[in-house]
């Protein structure tokens, strides 16, 4: 394998691992703030117990997010020097603002949030919790500005092969940014909703009578039920935006080869780039045209428009984009079903009496948000290929000439570590859930705030 391919796999592995944890912490920070405020308003123990359980998950996810993030920031230099050399004048300030306005904010106030409850007044602790949540959201904002700019560049000019910024407003509010930001923040909210619902369901199945498990279950289901319609709407709008700016990506997502009207929405197909057609198509007639053009006869761009006269293909690889898009939407539909069914059951039977098969189903979906998020990112990012910065810089042009065996060796090490950490992470969360279900105290943790501290008036 060559350096380019290995570097791409390595980058994909690192960022996929990284994104899992911010996806949790971005929304979980706000959820913790909610639990804390709820407790100080109602003084009900279950809110405090919920806070205590999930703050541990938060601390763990945060640590994983930070260390994998540090890996990310070195990747640009070690593997993609061409990226900064070409677009550094735009990417640089955006990354710098992320470090300055987000990372330090989170990192410093995290210490106070986790261990400071007995050392600072209640209001300062609440403020610290708020600042951590705000910081993670700011991180997401800046990095998504950069990522969106890579998809829909704006506000720059090219001089002697180097990009110069001309209009920062246009760079920051580039055409796909609002859609991507909204969709990602909702994704984070959904991931956390299903994580909390799933783990709480697991605790109930294991006989947890603590009160906070049922509350967590209700909270997760309701949050999921509220967010999923918004997400589907945001996703639809995101798709329309992509149709405008990156039609080749949408063509790959739909598996549509010819520019034509009455394009069906494919539920299943095996795209074949050699033969430039699909095998075993199953689809709903005209639905893709309706979704994308709001008209059954609407003309949808096809992949064959993106083949140059000399045969050079300028559209992304079709099958991975086609399939990851279906996985994401599939999980989204499953989430719709699960959360609305859950909301209905909650209304009819209450959180303590949900049918066991439903609870098992929910706990099986604990990490469904991760699946959809990764699938969504694969759609987006693979759909941008062969460009690294759309229309400006190809991925191939940015890669470092580090020898392939060297990249391969580091890739293997990263993959091994990520596999171990993934097992450890899920293992520890399950372990904590089982302990909580038995009513045993959670493992001794000198690092999280104690129950007494929380009982101090929190405002």
């Amino acid at each position, binding site marked *: 394998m060559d350096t380019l391919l290995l570097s791409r796999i390595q980058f994909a592995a690192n960022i996929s691992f990284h994104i899992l944890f911010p996806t949790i912490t971005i929304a979980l920070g706000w959820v913790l703030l909610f639990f804390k405020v709820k407790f100080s308003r109602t003084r009900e123990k279950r809110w405090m117990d919920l806070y205590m359980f999930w703050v541990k998950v938060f601390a*763990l996810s*945060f*640590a*994983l997010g*930070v*260390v994998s993030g*540090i*890996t990310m*920031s*070195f990747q*640009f*230099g*070690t593997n993609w*020097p061409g990226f*900064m*050399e070409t677009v550094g*004048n*735009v*990417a*640089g*300030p955006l*990354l*710098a*603002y992320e*470090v300055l*306005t987000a*990372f*330090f904010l*989170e*990192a*410093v106030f995290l*210490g*106070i949030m*986790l*261990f*400071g*409850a007995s050392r600072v007044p209640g209001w300062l602790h609440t403020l610290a919790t708020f600042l951590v949540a705000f910081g993670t959201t700011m991180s997401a904002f800046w990095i998504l500005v950069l990522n969106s700019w890579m998809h829909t560049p704006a506000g720059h000019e090219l001089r002697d092969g180097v990009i*110069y*910024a001309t209009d*920062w407003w246009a760079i920051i509010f580039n055409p796909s940014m609002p859609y991507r930001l909204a969709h990602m923040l909702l994704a984070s909210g959904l991931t956390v909703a299903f994580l909390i619902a799933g783990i709480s369901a697991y605790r109930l199945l294991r006989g947890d009578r603590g009160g906070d498990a049922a509350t967590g279950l209700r909270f997760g289901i309701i949050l999921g039920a509220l967010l999923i319609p918004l997400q589907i709407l945001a996703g639809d709008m995101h798709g329309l935006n992509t149709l405008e700016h990156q039609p080749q990506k949408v063509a790959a997502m739909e598996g549509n080869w010819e520019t034509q009207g009455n394009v069906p929405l494919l539920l299943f197909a095996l795209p074949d780039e050699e033969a430039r057609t699909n095998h075993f198509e199953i689809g709903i007639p005209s639905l893709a045209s309706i979704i994308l053009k709001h008209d059954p006869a609407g003309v949808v761009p096809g992949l064959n428009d993106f083949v140059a006269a000399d045969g050079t293909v300028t559209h992304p690889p079709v099958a991975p984009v086609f399939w990851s898009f279906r996985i994401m939407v599939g999980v989204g539909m499953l989430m719709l079903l699960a959360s609305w069914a859950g909301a209905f059951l909650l209304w009819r039977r209450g959180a303590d009496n949900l049918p066991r098969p439903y609870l098992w189903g929910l706990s099986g979906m604990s990490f469904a948000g991760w699946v959809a998020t990764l699938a969504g990112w694969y759609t987006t990012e693979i759909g941008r290929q062969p460009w690294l910065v759309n229309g400006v810089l190809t991925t191939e042009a940015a890669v*470092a*000439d*580090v020898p392939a065996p*060297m990249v391969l060796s*580091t890739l293997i*090490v*990263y993959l091994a*570590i990520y596999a171990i950490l993934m097992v*450890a992470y899920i293992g*520890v969360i399950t*372990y*904590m859930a089982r302990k909580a279900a038995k009513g045993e105290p959670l*493992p*001794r*943790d*000198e*690092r999280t*705030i*104690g129950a*007494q501290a929380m009982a101090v008036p929190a405002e």
Partner: protein
Amino acid sequence: MMADLDLPFIFAALLGLSILIYVVLDGFDLGVGILFPFASEAERDTMVASIGPFWDANETWLVLAIGILLVAFPIAHGAILTQLYLPVAVMLVGLILRGVAFEFRAKAPPKHKRAWDIAFCGGSLMAGLSQGFMLGLYIMGLSYTWWHVGFALLTAVFLTVAYSFIGATWLIWKTDGDLQKKAVKWSREGIWGVIAGMGLVSLFTPFVSERIFDKWFGLPQMLYLSPLPVMSALLIGAIFWKLRRLPMDADSYAWVPFVATIALFALGFAGMAYSFYPFIVPEALTIYEAASAPEALSIILVGTMIVLPTIIAYSVLSYWIFRGKATKLSYD
């Protein structure tokens, strides 16, 4: 207006400042990890508690440093990091292991705690060694000859010792009882390594290039520069003397070795910065050749000037909130 400023110099200074702050701050918490094997299980909990609220923010200075290199000197960034590909990977793996072990050791089933302790110590060692290795290779001009790698291996060991030393002085300040006594003992031993390491680097750097030699040993610079080694020697003397007397009644002066060590690190760093200025890739690329467009730099500078003081202020706030001995820090 901004265009009149010497932006590359300002950013080189900011870069230097964040590397220095990183080396001091993450230095002490990596050092605490490196000292793990010498402590008992209960002591380890206290050691971890002493750095618990800080390590994440400490590490963020590395992100800032690499960020400044990345954004202000993009060409140098690629040139340096591709040369340091493998040591960077080792460092990252080390930082990953220790960062997560820190969390896992407190949450995993008790029977796994030992394994996470090993990961914590091993990760800290990997990070310290690889940073020292990179330092040595950088001094030698970023090329892999046997002789350069040999030197880099030496600096790897010495930087690791220096980290464990500053870690030990941190523990003198933040702990009491037996652990504090142990930390004093570790510092007394470690200081020899620090002396040897600083001596080695000071001896070798001037001979790496004629330019650096002249910078130090030409007249009149030699006179202006003489305070640097003299102050370092005085500081080492002071630390030495203090370590013989610690711990003292009522725990007085327990902070002295740590603070003096920070000053020592700063002096050593200043000496190195002086040697390499104005080069950012040693003897190959100056900060002026490597800098980004002034438009990009000035937009970062505005933000930095507002945000950096704020960051420093709330970092100080955090150290102040968590002042006092680490044993009292736990549990709530």
